[in-house]
């Protein structure tokens, strides 16, 4: 920044686009915030980063027992444990991301009220740090693949697309919810409930084909439905359902764009009311 740098501060009202130039200018800070979240997440825990994989792994064991053994829910091909884990990995990422990012502004109220930087870094930083956890749990998944001798298909190339969709869906929800949380503490009660219900309306522990055909499109409105189907398709080669996945990706994009706009609209009041 040279001394010819000039900035004008005016009253801010109404809808505005994200200032991408500024976001780029502050990019190093974003990296630092993600790094901070990663560093402190498992500080002073015995198992440390192992928690990243333990959560979906234990959930996988319990769900296999209850739904597969007791309730006789079947996967659509692969061993149920693999099937469940392939769904739980992205779902855990999504649910933890939404929970943590929706609470992130309040948790960092000191930063919000004492220093300026693009506010979107706070909810997005929380998600960035969780992306590492997703990578770790996918690492464990590859070990499980070897154990079950399940083959990798070329569909694996689709994985980054669905990871991106998961990030966009989580970021969109997180941005909107965190902004709302500053004004309305209702969010604190809504989010855990939403996340809990989400697990059941998303085909995480059952295959998508269990949902009647005429409801399939409706299911696609849940961004994570398409992401979970997509993850399984990419990782395990299970049948893809392109209408549902396409719709989910579109919904994720919409959530992200609207999240950015809503956040931007509300952010200039953050410091005054947090």
């Amino acid at each position: 920044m040279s001394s010819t740098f000039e900035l004008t501060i005016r009253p801010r009202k109404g809808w505005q686009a994200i200032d991408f130039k500024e976001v780029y200018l502050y990019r190093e800070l974003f990296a630092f915030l993600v790094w901070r979240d990663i560093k402190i997440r498992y500080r002073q825990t015995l198992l440390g980063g192992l928690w990243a994989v333990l959560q979906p792994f234990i959930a996988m064991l319990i769900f296999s027992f209850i739904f597969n053994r007791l309730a006789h829910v079947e996967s659509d091909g692969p061993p149920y444990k693999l099937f469940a884990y392939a769904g739980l990995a992205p779902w855990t990422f999504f649910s933890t991301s939404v929970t943590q990012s929706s609470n992130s502004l309040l948790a960092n109220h000191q930063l919000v009220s004492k220093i300026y930087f693009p506010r979107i870094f706070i909810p997005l930083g929380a998600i960035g740090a969780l992306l590492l956890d997703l990578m770790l749990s996918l690492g464990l998944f590859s070990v499980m693949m070897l154990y079950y001798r399940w083959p990798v298909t070329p569909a694996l190339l689709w994985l980054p697309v669905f990871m991106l969709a998961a990030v966009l869906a989580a970021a969109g929800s997180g941005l909107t919810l965190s902004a709302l949380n500053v004004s309305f503490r209702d969010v604190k009660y809504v989010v855990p409930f939403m996340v809990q219900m989400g697990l059941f309306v998303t085909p995480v522990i059952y295959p998508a084909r269990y949902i009647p055909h005429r409801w399939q499109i409706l299911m696609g409105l849940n961004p994570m439905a398409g992401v979970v189907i997509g993850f399984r398709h990419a990782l395990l080669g299970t049948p893809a359902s392109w209408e549902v996945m396409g719709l989910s990706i579109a919904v994720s994009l919409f959530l992200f764009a609207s999240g950015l706009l809503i956040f931007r609209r509300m952010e200039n009041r953050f410091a005054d009311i947090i």
Partner: protein
Amino acid sequence: MNPILEIRNVSKQYKLGGRRLRKAETFRELLQRTVSKPFGQLTGLRNNGAPKEDLYAFWALQDVNTEVNQGDIVGIIGRNGAGKSTLLKILSRITSPTEGMVTIRGRLASLLEVGTGFHPELTGKENIFLNGAILGMRRAEIIRRFDEIVAFAEVEKFLDTPVKHYSSGMYVRLAFAVAAHLDPEILVVDEVLAVGDLSFQKKCLGKMGEVSRSGRTVLFVSHNMAAIENLCSRGIVLHQGKLHYDGTPKDAIQYYLNSLSTQSGTGHVVELNGVGDRRSIVAPLLKRLEFFTENEQPLVEGLSIGSRLKVRVHFDLPRPTASFNVGLGFNNSYGQRIFTAHSMFEPSRSIKEQVGPQVFACEIPSFTLMPGEYAVKVFLELNNSEADAIEDAAKIRVLESDFYGTGKVPRNGAFVLKHAWYLEQAADAK
């Protein structure tokens, strides 16, 4: 050349009632508000265009205008709630103004709190990087200045210890050290020198002085008048959201101290009827006291140490008298007499017979009692015996200021005196 900082008609409104409501607002309330809003605005328009919500509106800043040139060190003073912090928050873009605009021509960094973003679980080293980044430093910049920061903070041995194990002194030192090595063109600093031990405060003041000499522009909020007087090239007084005074730091401080006194309720005039502990042997002859400071500015309390004090004593002489004297006694908060001013000590006084209402003025060119509160006793003597006396007639507050011109505030003793120190040749030196 354009000023580096222009503040034009800046106002900031907080909605007090609305704010409290919004903090705990639920969706149901929002829904109600949203539904009733159009109607509210319509009725609001009918009420002289002032929406109903504004009943709770509070202007933290009102129509503030000023320009800051490069190299200016501006001290901003004012009472709590005068709008100082709000102004700094607008300049640092933490909150946006309700009206007006600000133009900033340069890189601005703000330090509204020491250690913003410090995380207790992270080590000293990690916090230096994180805090540096939060304050706007580049990674490369932090790496380049890392050793300097560590040396300034004196925490070399504890770099790999989580800061939650630091003593509060170490914590503050480290936090300030990072901030002190920022390299912006404009630095905005809120009351941050109030933390840390005395020796570290001195170090920070030294660093601030260094920054100011390097030609950078600084806006600086402090209640430490000595620091303002010593560091700043310009002083601004904010009062109830408005810019009341803009001038040299010395004048701004005086203005502020005077505004403090006129705010204290009693005013600079004390009617002696019914105040204090009175003993009237002849009659209640003493009528009124008036207090002034530099340039005949009215004052009740809030006199900066070493400045002028003038007291006018109004009284009545019932019959023609030549032998009358007036005294003023100053007692400290323990009730000990620290100083007595008495008209019998005035050598140039002409003794003349007087009668009726009188005004006797006492001037103290430099009131050098230590900062604190003093109770004033006033007494009138006729024919060398006490005729009327009032203990605790008024109170005078002496405030810290840079008496010695060094930025160092005297703390011990009962009063200050101008004095000098110099080295002389030692007798046994070769």
